[in-house]
């Protein structure tokens, strides 16, 4: 399975910061959204680890486009 990162969303609601990722699974036309955490700091390693564990894939199976910067 190949996971392509499309975006990282950080938004504020009711006093908390929510961190979500938007991904495409195996070049599907529809994206999937997942909650990484609440009130956490975002890092490259944290996102990669989260997606690896969620999908049961290695970091090499996760595509991180160059335009997505933290």
């Amino acid at each position, binding site marked *: 399975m190949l996971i392509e990162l*499309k*975006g*990282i969303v*950080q938004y*504020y*609601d009711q006093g908390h910061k929510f961190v979500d990722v938007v991904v495409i699974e195996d070049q599907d036309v529809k994206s999937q959204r997942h909650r990484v955490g609440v009130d956490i700091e975002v890092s490259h390693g944290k996102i990669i680890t989260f997606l690896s564990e969620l999908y049961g894939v290695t970091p090499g199976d996760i595509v991180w486009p160059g335009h*997505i910067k933290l």
Partner: protein
Amino acid sequence: MAAGLPDYIRGMDVILQALAELIVRPKYGTALLESGTLGVTANIDNTLVEVAGKGMIYGGAVWLDDTNSQANGEVRLWADDVDLSPLSFLRLIDYGINKPRTWPVTINVYNNVDFIYSAGISYGITFESKLKISYDENNGRTPTVHYRLVYTLI
């Protein structure tokens, strides 16, 4: 279908213009919605939502009602770290910037009697790596700000 034949027998024949019409549209990703409510901090620029990625805005709004004036408050739209809309509610109403797409942020409601304000986020603005909406509180108060943003990531 070209010349009465199914597509699997004969593909599109654009060169010969055999098609009666050809519909073309840009391919974008799934529409996404962000929404939230934030009690902002006085006298600073408060981030409401921030997206890392490439995409396009479909629309949005930021609104609030307070017990005192927020005329100098600014709804800010940032694309790729550029502040596209450094104008307060007061300036937006003064200049009549109230039509979508004439400016990245437009005024929907300006009620400086009951202190209700609403700004719209214009459709069609693209971003290459980052999108952010913030509320710059310039009145020394801590109002509760509500927002909605609809966009896509490509």
